[in-house]
């Protein structure tokens, strides 16, 4: 029998901070006593390219990667990336997506078009889509770069671990001078998840 593990994918555009998000989540899960694997990609793919990190947890995790049809949740930092990675979602999986749009180079050069109403089309597929304007909330918190932490705030309400564990993980992963800003971003994420 295959081993039961939970899988969370974090997808976005290089530079959006998906690495930090995956590390915060990884620390939360370790604190909960799970066996955890977090897989990242560094180097070439980070330069404004499509970036994927995998977080897996359970009693015993073997493979660090997530394959098509395996993700219990996908957190997409950008709409097009949500569309790109939706095949990785499990039946009944959850898709948390930031409404931010970043044109990739083939769209900028006019070679391809950015699809319209991605969120509407994904909802029509009977997928549980939670759309969040994370960029505006991050700007409200004081820095557009904190939208990764806003989305962790949203996720925290879905996973249901104790709040204190998340705050501890934030303190471990974020430099102290940015902690207040990120706490604000996290709270804003929590509040929209509850709304």
């Amino acid at each position, binding site marked *: 029998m*295959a081993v039961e593990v939970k899988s969370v994918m974090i997808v976005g555009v290089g530079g959006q901070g998906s690495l930090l998000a995956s590390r915060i989540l990884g620390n939360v899960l370790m604190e909960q006593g799970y066996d955890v*694997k977090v897989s990242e*990609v560094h180097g070439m793919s980070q330069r404004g390219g499509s970036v994927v990190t995998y977080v897996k947890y359970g009693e015993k995790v*073997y493979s660090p990667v997530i394959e098509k*049809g*395996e993700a219990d949740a996908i957190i997409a930092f950008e709409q097009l990336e949500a569309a790109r990675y939706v095949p990785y*979602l499990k039946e009944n999986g959850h898709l948390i997506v930031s409404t931010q749009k970043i044109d990739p180079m083939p769209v900028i050069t006019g070679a391809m078009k950015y699809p319209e109403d991605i969120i509407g089309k*994904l909802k029509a597929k009977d997928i549980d889509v939670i759309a969040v304007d994370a960029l505006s909330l991050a700007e409200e918190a004081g820095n557009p770069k904190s939208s990764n932490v806003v989305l962790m705030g949203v996720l925290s309400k879905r996973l249901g671990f104790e709040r204190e564990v998340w705050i501890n993980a934030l303190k471990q992963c974020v430099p102290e001078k940015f902690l207040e800003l990120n706490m604000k971003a996290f709270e804003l994420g929590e509040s929209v998840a509850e709304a």
Partner: protein
Amino acid sequence: MKKLMLGNDAFARGLFEAGCTVVSSYPGTPSTEITEAVAKYEEVYAEWAPNEKVALEVALGASIAGARAFCGMKHVGLNVAADPLYTASYTGVNAGLVIAVADDPGMHSSQNEQDSRHHAIASKIPMVEPSDSQECREFVKQAFELSEKYDTPVIVRMSTRVAHSQSGIDLGMRNNIELKPYKKDAGKFVMVPANARKRHYDVEERMQNIKEDYKFNSIFNKVEKKATVAGIITSGIAYQYAKEVFGDEVSFLKLGLVNPLPDQLLIDFASNYDEVYVIEELDGIIEDRCKALGLNVKGKEIFGCIGELSQSIIAEKLKGIVNKVKSFDEDVPVRPPVMCAGCPHRGLFYSLSKIGATVMGDIGCYTLGASAPLNAMDATICMGASISSLHGFNKARGEEAEKKTVAVIGDSTFMHSGMTGLVNIAYNATNSTVIILDNSITGMTGHQQNPTTGYNLKGDVAAKVNLEELCKALGIKRVRVVDPYNMAQTEKAIREELEVKEPSVIISRRPCALLKYVKHAPALKVDNDKCKSCKACLKIGCPAISIRDSKAFIDHTQCVGCGICQEMCKFDAIGGKQ
């Protein structure tokens, strides 16, 4: 509680705990973080060498001197270090010497996907292969023991998924090891033919001894025996994929020592099962050994030797299971990596594209100049090849080529292996034009210092190579510096140097826009009344510029105000801050 750690960080922890004191490496994805992490321990001296050959020789020197030493690199780096590697096999060590080589199946960040186990076999050096962070730490410590017990360097083979995955590890204390005495031993360390002939016997004997001593279950090689009809022989990350698919449904032989392979263990394991599969990434090295031993195993005929494996590939090939997937019904535009907003390489590559130059490229962020819309690269091979292949290209095609062909190479890559190519241009005389893209850092691997930056790995001020003086000393009389943010000046310089009938170097100098000390100008804004929708600003391929409602639009979260797009706009529509 276990600590969540990247494979590379756990590797560094293992180096620390093993009492390693001297580290010399060259950065390369996915190996870089090992050396960055170990440099943070005060007890360890760590440096970035100019290239992997130098790094390995430094580490070998430290080992001969009596200190436990380490050298890390990516797979292609081992090709550069192959010269000392093959002879270090003959000399052996004094204190332990461990080498990390990080393979990149799937080529996430590499120019080929060579399987470094071939180097271990050919150089007759033991190789161990961890499959998660905990094993990274343990195997490194064991590798030092192996190195000293059998008088040999030991290679630890990493791969992208092991290096860049985090999993839990236990931390141990550092074993502070005294410097071993150094005693002159020419027969062992002076590899002239008379000595090397004798040492070759020692090498063969050593490998036989290791084979004998590790022929059963060991710290590295483990049998997980279940009452099953099928068995799987595997190693490294492939073990994790296979284990996820099969759990305890089949028996496993997990190999941690991948050179030399334990013949007796392979025979004992395989003879227990009706079906035996060898699951290994890249080449069929374990499988070939099994077949040479007369074992009936299957592997590459099922899985092939290209790209990464995964649990779903194994599940599909061996169980016929394919996951159901949802999909988005329209074409999703690809999102390839691009030069960052404000990247100093952009202006240089736009100028090359405008001139229509033939461009011999090299390894670094600037390889992205090959992508649309710049499309300004003709060849990329390996570190340093831009300069030497430019010389060959010009020798083959003569003056016609010299007037339109350039080499582009970064500052770190030039220090790594560009200098010798430049000497060749001066010495063997082509009127070649070499452009050094000096962004004052090793960029692609994530900002490592190098001999041109004025700082060392520990962050201390260091001697700084003066590129202008260096190029002149190598025999190039025409050396000039341009600012790639000034495209008119840059284009003019390239055109002039292509015309002159002597070799020349253009240093395109501007620090990487991502460096912390680089101050950014405020984001630029498009004046919609002035914008004529001509899209000239899109030709530079800046990720911050797109079209919104038929007008150019600048994303203020990305723009760093470099001004390249302003130079493109004939209507003065881009200006001011947002």
